[in-house]
């Protein structure tokens, strides 16, 4: 069972968090999966927003890390950014452009922090629920440590080695997708292959990388979302 369940207040039903009145979904029909998740999150579907967190958390942290270097502050500001995003979702006009919007929030949060020059511990509201939750995380052992940082570094290095070991076509397809940001159709045109073949190359390449790093991920499996 996931630790998340122990940290999240019991929901009244499987689909909504039930804390506040459900927000009206409204808006135009989504053209992307992100847009659909935003609509569902606005309607109160907790998991929809959590999925956006999982997808964008590292990119958000990296955006903040451009201007703030203390890892603890970066993490705290990343959390702040997602809280702001959650509250601001109903005002998001282009739901299919969640990431560009979140990136702007991250930049604003980081800029505000730099401008304030205040001690983060002093300016945080004393919310007893939040304090209790953070304490529960620390008791659970999910709090970051030096060992965690070393493990993360080892994982990162292993990933790079696994990419280098991929068959050429898999590596090319993956790098065109990730480094150049090309979509499947553009990669297919560049490589002279059908789109489905490109999808398969990318999938098989990622699967090979995942297989290579699996031993490094196993020890902390119980601490994932």
């Amino acid at each position: 069972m996931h630790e998340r369940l122990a940290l999240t207040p019991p929901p009244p039903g499987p689909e909504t968090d039930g804390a506040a009145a459900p927000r009206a979904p409204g808006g135009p029909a989504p053209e992307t999966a992100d847009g659909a998740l935003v609509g569902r999150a606005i309607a109160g579907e907790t998991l929809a927003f959590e999925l956006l967190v999982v997808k964008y958390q590292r990119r958000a942290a990296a955006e903040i890390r451009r201007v703030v270097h203390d890892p603890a502050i970066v993490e705290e500001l990343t959390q702040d950014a997602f809280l702001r995003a959650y509250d601001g979702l109903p005002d998001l006009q282009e739901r299919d452009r969640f990431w560009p919007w979140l990136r702007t929030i991250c930049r604003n949060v980081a800029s505000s922090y730099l401008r304030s020059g205040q001690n983060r511990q002093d300016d945080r509201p004393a919310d007893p629920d939040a304090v209790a939750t953070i304490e529960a995380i620390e008791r659970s052992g999910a709090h970051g440590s030096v060992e965690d940082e070393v493990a993360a570094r080892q994982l990162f290095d292993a990933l790079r080695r696994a990419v280098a070991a991929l068959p050429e076509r898999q590596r090319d397809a993956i790098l065109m997708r990730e480094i150049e940001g090309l979509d499947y159709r553009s990669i297919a045109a560049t490589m002279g292959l059908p789109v489905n073949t490109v999808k398969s190359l990318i999938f098989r390449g990622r699967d090979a990388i995942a297989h290579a790093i699996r031993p490094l991920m196993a020890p902390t499996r119980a601490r994932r979302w």
Partner: protein
Amino acid sequence: MNDETLSAFLDDALPPERVAELLAALAPGAPGAAEARDRLTTLQLIKDALVGIEAPDDGFTLRILARLAAHRTPRGRA
């Protein structure tokens, strides 16, 4: 939930009409949800690492979600 679906979601190539299927597969208590979440986490880690974004420790996600959970409570939102 097969890995190609998870991969397509992370590549912004999953049609919006398949989001319900994705959420159902990842929902707490759904058969195979824990494994699907692990696979999604791994695939996302790979994507981020390839563009040079280092992985925070494993508790990073839990801590964000915990603050969100506290924030969503009526007292947290007050």
